[in-house]
């Protein structure tokens, strides 16, 4: 044989090696792996046949050829082992295909709580941590609890501020005794009638006003009433409690202010506002933006007297928080009607 044959033989080995490796990597089962092993490394396999063919070569070429075969045989054996691991590790079945990792994951149904539920919880939590108990009351109320006992007698001009939806039932005087509560305040009376101080409670619930709806008015909304009656409860406690509430809900840096306001069932009466622009640290450059968030005051002594409390001994404070207002502020919602429209594109965001 001449130089060419030498070259051909070596090339031949390379070619065989490359084919063998391609075939090896294509094996996916132990069976096909064994088949391959028999074909290349078996007793009558290609490697053995090649080794045998050494004798047919000129003696000068034999060592080189032998070396080439040996090294090829070693490579094949090594690759066989790693392929074996691969095949067995894939459950003896298929080797895992590579994935399109950008395909979306399998969707999980994650439910959601209505933003009003969430806001009520946030507010309630702020007060329960200050020792307030959560109770509820009826949404259909008597004029007696909704107005009269709250120092709003019949034909009082303060009733102008509580446009009422009346239940269509008249008593023997031709008056309508039942209504949809216009505020959660009747629970102040219902509680004090049946319970002696100390009292510290909050009352979340739906309330109703006969008012045209627009982006900031709903006829059907939610309120949280608060009431604390005890010895030595003063206006400073009212301020302290509500300032603390504001910080819990709107952050440590929020600016709060109290101003005089009128509600027939408190005296002195107040309205609390927060400076919406003060919540962030860099508030120096911003204009103040006071937003009213609740009404409050010291429980009117006429009310304490009417429920039979000793007004020499007990004082109390009360407050009412509009839930939708706070939810709108916290979430940047610009239309109150979204809450009760229940579009899942809205609900799903909370």
């Amino acid at each position, binding site marked *: 044989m001449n130089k060419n044959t030498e070259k051909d033989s070596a090339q031949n080995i390379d070619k065989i090696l490359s084919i063998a490796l391609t075939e090896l990597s294509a094996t996916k089962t132990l069976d096909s792996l064994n088949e391959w092993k028999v074909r290349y490394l078996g007793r009558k396999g290609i490697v053995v046949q090649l080794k045998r063919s050494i004798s047919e070569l000129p003696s000068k070429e034999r060592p080189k050829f032998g070396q080439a075969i040996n090294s090829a045989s070693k490579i094949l054996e090594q690759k066989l082992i790693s392929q074996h691991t691969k095949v067995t590790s894939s459950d003896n079945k298929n080797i895992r295909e590579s994935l399109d990792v950008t395909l979306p994951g399998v969707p999980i*149904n*994650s439910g959601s709580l209505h933003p009003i539920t969430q806001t009520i919880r946030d507010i309630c939590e702020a007060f329960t941590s200050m020792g307030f*108990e959560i109770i*509820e009351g009826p*949404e259909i109320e008597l004029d007696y609890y909704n107005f009269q006992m709250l120092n709003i007698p019949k034909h009082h001009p303060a009733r102008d501020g509580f446009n009422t939806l009346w239940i269509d039932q008249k008593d023997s005087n031709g008056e309508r005794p039942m209504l949809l509560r216009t505020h959660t305040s009747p629970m102040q009376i219902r509680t004090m009638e049946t319970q002696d101080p100390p009292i510290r409670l909050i009352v979340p619930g739906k309330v109703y006003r006969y008012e045209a709806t627009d982006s900031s008015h709903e006829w059907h909304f939610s309120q949280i009433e608060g009431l604390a009656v005890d010895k030595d409860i003063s206006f*400073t406690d009212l301020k302290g409690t509500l300032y603390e509430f504001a910080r819990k809900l709107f952050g440590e840096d929020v600016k709060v202010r109290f101003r005089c306001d009128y509600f027939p069932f408190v*005296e002195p009466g107040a309205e609390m506002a927060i400076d919406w622009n003060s919540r962030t640290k860099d508030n120096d450059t911003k204009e103040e933006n006071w937003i009213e968030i609740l009404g409050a005051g010291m429980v009117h002594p006429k009310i304490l007297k009417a429920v039979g409390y000793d007004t020499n001994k007990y004082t109390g404070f009360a407050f009412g928080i509009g839930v939708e207002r706070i939810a709108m502020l916290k979430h940047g919602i610009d239309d109150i009607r979204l809450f009760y429209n229940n579009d899942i594109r809205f609900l799903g965001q909370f």
Partner: protein
Amino acid sequence: MLVPLSWLKKYVEIDLPPKQIAHMLTMAGVEVSNYKEIGAHLDDNKFIVGEIIKIEPHPNADRIKLPMVDIGSQNTVQVVCGAPNIREGQKIAFAKIGAKVFNTHSEKVEQLREANIRGVKSEGMICSIKELGIGDDHEGILVLDDSTEVGIPISNVVSDVIFNIDVTPNRADCLSILGVAREIAALTNKTVLEPEISFSTIDKLTKSVISVDIKDLDLCRRYTASVIEGVTIKQSPQWLQDILIKIGQRPINNVVDITNYVMLETNQPLHAFDITSINNRSIIVRKAKSKEKLTTLDGEDRELEPPMLVIADTSGAIGLAGIMGGANSEISDSTHTILLEAANFEPINTRKTSSHLRLSTAASYRFERTLSPELAEIGLRRATRLIKQIAGGEVYDQIIDVGSKASDAQLIPFDKTRFNQVLGSEITYEDAIKTLESLGFIKNNSQNRDMNLFDTIEPSLEDTTYFTPPYWRPEIDIQEDLIEEVARITGYNAIPTTMISAPIPHHRPKSMWHFKEQIKDKISALGMDEIITYNVNSELELVNTNSWDIDNPPLSLANPMINDQRFLRSSLVANMLKTVSMNKKLSRDEPLRLFELGRIFIPNSNKDKLSLPIEKESLVSAFCGNRNARNWSYKPVQMNFYDAKGVLQSLLNEFGLEVEFKDKQDVLYIDGRAATVVHEGQIIGDIGELNPEVLKNFDLESSLTTIFRLDIHQLHNLVGSQDKTYEQFSKYPESSRDLSLIVDKDLLADQIEDVFKKHKYVKDIFPFDIYIDESLGTNKKSVTFQIIFQSQKGTLTAEQIDRCMEDLLNKLQRSMKVELRQG
């Protein structure tokens, strides 16, 4: 309530910027919702007061005039003007060339240029209110008061600030300019200059020409009247017209304008009668007769009923007391002598009358809010003085004054201990007393203890001061009112903050509220979205969802927002379906899993319709659309009964409740695809695929929709506050066997399961392959169960399990027709 700063300044010195005034008033409880600055934009060099000294006709146009205007500093200019109301001698607003005026043609503010109008040069412009940019009036040029000085900047004359004040129902006093002025005075340590109320009279007694008789002193507490003879009814002077226009009123004539002006100034409503129209010169204040007729000043014919109060003469009603005068006694241009009335009418009757007649006026609004009888005389004297001054005439001597002169104001104790108890503040008692005095409260230490019976605390003699409120604050009643006065004038922000020092009171164990929130948490964790809907429905909606109980129909509202929201809901289903339907249109087949936990209202039995209804907490969940959100990995499958049941079971499992599902017939549901949910014999809810007939009403007929409902009160009772008890689980392995049976088609799965579940080794059994095929025989189905075996005591052997299977199969075959499926 619109309050011009210029008017306030007549009674109190104000040197603060409007923003600060607004803030100060707001903080003190007199909320300034906004304010408008008028004329602040007028350039003082360009807009000045001028006087029209001469008017020439335009040579080429009839309606255009050529006035010569004196603009001060010996300058006279000629302009061209087409205004119909231009007269020689008028003081007017003159805009120089270069002034920025509102062009009423282009509707834009433009710089005024020298113009040539039909051949005549115009060196400026005489402006209307609109052209000045201070209002909408463009009927003619703005005519200033005759006394206005020529040459001064217009802004000195027209600029003003109009505060818009939201007056709370307790502060009737702030419906008057003087009331607001008194607030500002107290807040800024100034004194109020009270308006002049004196006038000279002639030597004729008022009572010689008029008599007044109050028939009902409870409804009319005081009636004062004056007679002014020889008035000239004409237009009001410019300043009076201007001020009324500023607050949005239309000037009528001098006498009417003065009554309005004085009401706004002092708060006392007034009414002027033409004395000749009063029959027999006799005023009778009495209740209306049944069906008594009166045409009010607004031209409406009114039919009155007692106890509406009227002002009458001997022939009938001539006015609706405290609300509106009658057309029959109205003053006219020819009126020569007027009877001016200032009375005090009772609030509730005024309010009832006003609301009954749907006639609310500035006067009725004030009387409803309680005015002091003391105010009547003050208002009367003030208006009489102004009428004499402006409309001329002579005033008869000694006004008529019937009824009680004194106000109801009583002595109110102001106790140091109580003051500190309520406010808890650092304001000293001495400062508090000074504050009250600054508001016009009169300190009164008389030993006469005829004080308000409703003092909330026993006053101690030495630390108690007694106050009489000023007549303009009749609503001040008890010492807490005084405390508020001190706090609001001192400023709420000056009061420190503390936390309640008393111990936290005892709380009741977990309430219904907590239970509801727990359910919301659990059900939303199961992939459900919460909705909250209105508590009302239309009759049709309730009928269509089988929620209308004919024997006990839902409560209705007398005045619903809209007719479709008339009934208090007796079920949550209709609103749920409305919500499903609305979302379905938006999301097509995407999964909708919604729940609402809300109240339903069950009226009390027919016997006692006036007692409050039962308010029941209820839960409804709805499932509609595909089981999975759009995704490449699933084939879409519609949700059905079992999707709902899965959520319901998981929810109840969370509370450790075992329930049974019993076939239910209800027109709400498809027959054979609904069940009641039963716990130990008690129905706690139901579940089912909704009848397409029901769904049709909500545009959902082609969308399979399943709902379940739970009675939350029953659930609450069942779950109670009991904690879950830990159950030990087996540490030995479990084994499973499959069992394929051919059974009757209507045999229920749990009939087989029940037999198996009773066996001590059976940990669980569940069906996993169900099919119906003719080859199985008629009315047969094949069910394959997987049964899980496990023991607490040891690993079960194959023999044990085999034996167990054999036993169970025998038992099964004894009690029902089952056949082992071969192969």
